C-alpha cells in the first residue's frame, strides 16, 4: 500500500482517535508506556504532515431534524457534468456532490427536513441545464459508520 510509513505509536494514536477523538492522551500514553508529552508531540506531527487533518464529532442528521437522507444518482451531458456538480454543491440540503466514473456521472448526498423538500431538491437538480436524469435512493433506518475501517500505512 502506498503512502507514508508510520511507527507503532503513530498508528496506535490514530487508531485510538479514529474510534474516539476525545480519548485522553494520558490513556494512550499509559497503554503504550510513553509520556503524555510524547503522545501530544506525535499527534501534532501527524497533523503537521497533513496525515491527520483534524478531529471532529459525528452527528446524526436525523436527530437534528433532517429526517430524510438520500443519495442522488445523476446522469448528465458530458460537457455539463462539472457545472452540474458545482450547482448541486451550492444547493441548500446537499451535503456532498462529486463527479463519478461508472454508471452515473455524478453523485450527491442530501439531507432535508421532509420528503417534500427532498423531492423539490431532486427536481431542482433535474431541471438544471445538461441534467438527463436524477434517481433518488432514500437512506432507510440507521446508517452505520465505520471510520475504523481505514487502513493505515504499514508500520515501520
Amino acid at each position, binding site marked *: *500500500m*502506498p*503512502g*507514508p510509513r508510520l511507527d507503532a505509536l503513530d498508528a496506535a494514536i*490514530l487508531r485510538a*482517535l*479514529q*474510534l*474516539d*477523538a*476525545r480519548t485522553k492522551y494520558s490513556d494512550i500514553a499509559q497503554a503504550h508506556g510513553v509520556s503524555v508529552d510524547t503522545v501530544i508531540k506525535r499527534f501534532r506531527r501527524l497533523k503537521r*504532515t*497533513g*496525515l*491527520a*487533518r*483534524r*478531529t*471532529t*464529532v*459525528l*452527528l*446524526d*442528521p436525523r*436527530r*437534528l431534524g433532517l429526517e430524510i*437522507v*438520500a*443519495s442522488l*444518482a445523476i446522469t448528465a451531458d458530458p460537457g455539463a457534468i462539472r457545472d452540474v456538480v458545482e450547482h448541486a454543491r451550492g444547493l441548500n440540503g446537499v*451535503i*456532498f456532490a*462529486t*463527479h*463519478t*466514473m*461508472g*454508471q*452515473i456521472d455524478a*453523485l450527491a*448526498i442530501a*439531507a432535508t427536513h421532509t420528503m417534500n423538500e427532498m423531492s423539490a431538491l431532486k427536481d431542482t437538480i433535474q431541471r438544471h441545464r445538461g441534467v438527463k436524469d436524477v*434517481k*433518488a*435512493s*432514500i*437512506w*432507510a*433506518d*440507521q*446508517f*452505520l*459508520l*465505520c*471510520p475504523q*475501517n*481505514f*487502513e*493505515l*500505512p504499514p508500520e515501520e
Partner: protein
Amino acid sequence: MSELDALILERLTCDARTSFRQIAAEAGRSTDTVINHYDRLVADGVIRGSTVVLDTATIGYEGAAAFNIDAATAEGASPAAIMQTLIGMPNIILATRTVGEHDILALAVIHDIGHYARLGREIAAIPGVRGISSNLWPGGQEICPRYFII
C-alpha cells in the same frame, strides 16, 4: 436545541478535542453545565461519536466509491446480515439500507483501480448479495464532514 447545544456542536465539529472548559468560558457558563449538555447530546444520539479526519490521499487512497447492492429475495437472505458483513470489511466506511433502485449503499475508500475491482468482487461474494453496481470518484475529498467522514 439550545444556543449552548449549538455552540458545543459547532466547536466540536471543528475540533472534537476542544475542552469543555474552553467552551464554557466562551459561553459564559460553568464547565459542569457544558458537560451536562454534551452528555445529553450523546444520550439523545445527536452526537454519535468522534473521530480523526485522515487525509485519504496522504495515507494512500486514490479515491472513493459507492457500491449499490441488490439483496437476494430468497428466504434466508438478510440485508441486515449483509450490512454487518460490510461494516466489518476494511475500507468500507459507511453502509446504509436504501429505498429506491437498490437495497444497500456502501461507501468505500479505494487505493487504486485494482483494489476497487477486488473490493467489488468481495462485496459481490457476500452471501445474499444478488448484484452490485458501483461508481468511483477520485481525490481525497471529505464526505459531509459534519455528518460522516471520508
